[in-house]
């Protein structure tokens, strides 16, 4: 037996080999596998998170850009897209109401926000700032030039860098690679928000799909950092994906890494992928798969807590991983959640919020969230539980 002793192992990008093996891709859910909110959502006309986790749809500027259906598609690059594995899902945008003539700043983007704590490796704001490389697979019936925007939200000193790619052949999966310089002037300011344990919402990556003339201003050079100005984001972008009903755009295999080489997509296990997404969104739905189980007649339990004030109860959320920031509560309907303490009290809630006393700072909300349920009168100080009583019921906490 022999022993290999080395001082350091470097990846093709010159980074720590160990770090690149473990955490090369700064994008969450780049293979579009996790979709806690659902696999399809139609009638989209405004900004929000609709299907695959971590990917936000932005529709803005006056009248918006038509109407869209977003789905987690099984249309993916086939065969040898990667030697490491294959893609099972993609994010699909499909135009269902067209807007052929965009005005002013009307725009459509797909974006992901990356926490500052994940960007320390870039060394931005120093003379050693590192390049970054974005790679992804994309397909659309609309050929042309598309913009991608790196946007650094930096406490009033916003910075941006524009990259571009071209879809050359309609309805064909193509792999695109964009490398940009490091920003030697400004860091991602990762410690700017002491109230936010995750380090703030700092780097955003925008995939531009449509843009009105109000965002075509200025002179923008590819791959160069400059002062942030969203009115220039689409300079050089030529496609209005919303100009015709039925237009489609698919993307998967999104990877953002430090260095100037695009390495093969870093697959995560399903649970690792899910845990990363759970930092920003955690959802419990009633799943009637086991409806025949005797215990299931009581619904799906969320957690336990205590009644107080005669009409309210606090129930601890079954945390998967800490949230980035104080989360928002969303739910199918407040009455889909029952509150009970014993056989004598079992009523639907009338309102749901995050429990919030003066001692419950943002970090505590993120690390130990309690839900506040309002219901009809119940005995103070009795132990209570919350459960989903409706087959269509669900509740979620989100901190995107």
């Amino acid at each position, binding site marked *: 037996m022999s022993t290999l002793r080395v001082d350091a192992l470097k990846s093709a990008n010159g980074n720590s080999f160990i770090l690149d093996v473990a955490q090369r891709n700064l994008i969450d859910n780049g293979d579009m596998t996790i979709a806690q909110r659902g696999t399809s959502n139609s009638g989209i006309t405004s*900004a929000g998170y609709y299907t695959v986790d971590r990917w936000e749809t932005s529709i803005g500027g006056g009248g918006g850009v038509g109407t869209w259906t977003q789905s987690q598609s099984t249309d993916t690059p086939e065969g040898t897209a990667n030697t490491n594995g294959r893609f099972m899902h993609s994010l699909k945008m499909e135009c269902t109401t067209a807007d052929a003539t965009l005005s002013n700043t009307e725009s459509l983007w797909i974006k992901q926000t990356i926490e500052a704590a994940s960007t320390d490796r870039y060394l931005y704001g120093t003379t050693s700032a590192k390049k970054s490389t974005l790679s992804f697979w994309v397909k659309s019936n609309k050929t042309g030039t598309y913009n991608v925007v790196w946007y650094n939200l930096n406490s009033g000193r916003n910075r941006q860098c524009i990259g571009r790619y071209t879809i050359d052949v309609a309805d064909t999966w193509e792999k695109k690679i964009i490398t940009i310089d490091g920003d030697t002037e400004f860091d991602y300011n990762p410690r700017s928000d002491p109230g936010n344990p995750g380090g703030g919402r700092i780097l955003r990556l925008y995939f531009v799909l449509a843009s009105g003339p109000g965002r075509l201003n200025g002179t923008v050079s590819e791959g160069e950092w400059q002062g942030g100005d969203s009115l220039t984001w689409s300079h050089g972008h030529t496609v209005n994906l919303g100009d015709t009903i039925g237009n489609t755009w698919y993307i998967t295999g999104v990877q953002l890494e430090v260095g100037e080489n695009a390495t093969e997509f870093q697959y995560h296990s399903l649970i690792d992928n899910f845990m990363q997404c759970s930092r920003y969104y955690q959802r419990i739905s009633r799943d009637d798969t086991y409806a025949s189980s005797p215990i299931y007649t009581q619904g799906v339990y969320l957690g336990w807590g205590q009644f107080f004030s005669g009409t309210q109860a606090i129930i601890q959320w079954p945390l998967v991983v800490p949230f980035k920031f*104080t*989360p*928002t509560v969303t739910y199918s309907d407040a009455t889909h959640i029952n509150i009970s303490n014993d056989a004598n009290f079992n009523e639907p809630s009338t309102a749901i919020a*995050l429990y919030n*006393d003066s*001692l419950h700072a943002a970090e505590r909300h993120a690390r130990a969230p309690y839900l*506040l349920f309002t219901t009809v*009168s119940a005995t103070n100080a009795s132990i209570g539980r919350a459960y989903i009583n409706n087959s269509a019921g669900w509740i979620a906490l989100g901190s995107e």
Partner: protein
Amino acid sequence: MAINNVITNARYIRMTDEALGIIDQIVGIECVFDGVNTTAPIAVGNREYDEIMQQVEAGHITIADDDSEGDEE
């Protein structure tokens, strides 16, 4: 101001916890946010809270002050 999200039926949610000396404190804003039942925390930096307050400041929406719940014994 461009409206990024459609927000309706906004109202404050309050809580009372006498053991902690909390009386009728606002803890969130309940609304329908892009068609989804939502309660945003009172927390600057929270995406939904920030959007609600932007629309309030722009005069697009108002928030009802519902004090009928949470303080009854």
